[in-house]
């Protein structure tokens, strides 16, 4: 006997993600899921963001890594709440891991939650965490062809931040080809160019975050 099922295999994850988002909404927390390759600069961007906003915005961070507490230690030095998730080999954060991390955070005292996903351009795009916005970071040395190689990541991300633009003189990164690929696939994507090293462009990124916070 054949039984029609037509059920998404990630349904269980999606349900927990929805529950996470309701909990965040109840506490008026804006959560951003930050995704990128390893080494693109997620932690550096988070540190820059904390540095610019911490006097005005109450920030907390969830750090996802396969192993180690290096990133969480760096962030904790800035005096913000941080929870480290070690996925123990898993290539992405899933909704259940984030749910456990939310239990350890003082949500009533947080305005902005930055969720640093595991460095990977594939699997994090598929798993909802409950964050309100998905954002991806691409560093210039990774090359302008990445939208073709990881189309799901570039489609799912509402915000795309290009980091390490101070490298531009040393690389052959074709911005017009890159922009054409990104906007062709995801015309509503919000694009920023920054350098976490020099601070260039960080102001625009932070202003956008503040406008999103005001809009809530």
């Amino acid at each position: 006997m054949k039984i029609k099922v037509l059920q998404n295999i990630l349904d269980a994850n999606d349900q927990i993600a929805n529950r996470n988002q309701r909990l965040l909404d109840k506490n008026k927390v804006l959560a951003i899921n930050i995704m990128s390759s390893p080494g693109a600069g997620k932690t550096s961007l988070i540190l820059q963001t904390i540095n610019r906003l911490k006097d005005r915005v109450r920030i907390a961070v969830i750090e996802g890594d396969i192993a180690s507490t290096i990133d969480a230690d760096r962030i904790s030095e800035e005096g913000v709440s941080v929870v480290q998730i070690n996925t123990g080999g898993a290539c992405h954060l899933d909704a259940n891991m984030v749910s456990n991390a939310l239990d350890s955070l003082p949500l009533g005292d947080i305005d902005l939650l930055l969720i640093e996903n595991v460095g990977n351009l594939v699997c994090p795009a598929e798993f909802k965490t409950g964050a309100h916005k998905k954002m991806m970071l691409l560093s210039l040395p990774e090359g302008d062809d990445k939208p073709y190689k990881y189309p799901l990541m570039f489609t799912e991300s509402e915000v795309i931040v290009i980091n390490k633009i101070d490298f531009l003189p040393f690389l052959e990164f074709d911005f017009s080809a890159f922009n054409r690929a990104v906007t062709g696939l995801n015309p509503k994507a919000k694009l920023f160019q920054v350098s976490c090293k020099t601070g260039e462009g960080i102001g625009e990124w932070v202003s956008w975050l503040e406008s999103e916070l005001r809009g809530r």
Partner: protein
Amino acid sequence: MHELSVTQGMLDIALEKARGAQASRVARINLVIGELSSIVDDCVQFYFDFLSRDSIASGATLSFTRIPMQVRCRNCGLSFFPDKSLWSCPQCDKWDVEIIAGNEFYIDSIEVE
């Protein structure tokens, strides 16, 4: 890379549906997986054989239907299968597409006895 947890999720759904139908055995699970899903068939099969061994789904055949990435031009509406390095519309030459197929990941049906 995350096949263990998704295989467990898939098995849970199949067993729940089989129990609902009061089946004594799951013979086959028909899966639909898009090209953009980061799922490796052999890897799912390997974990499935392990995870299902004490259940009524033990020994079930997994059938994988792969769906290629397909896009639709937002300008003229043409659906096409893009070349890996070229997303411009073959009909109107515009470069403005939405993905309409390729990220599926679901159980289409199960066959039970």
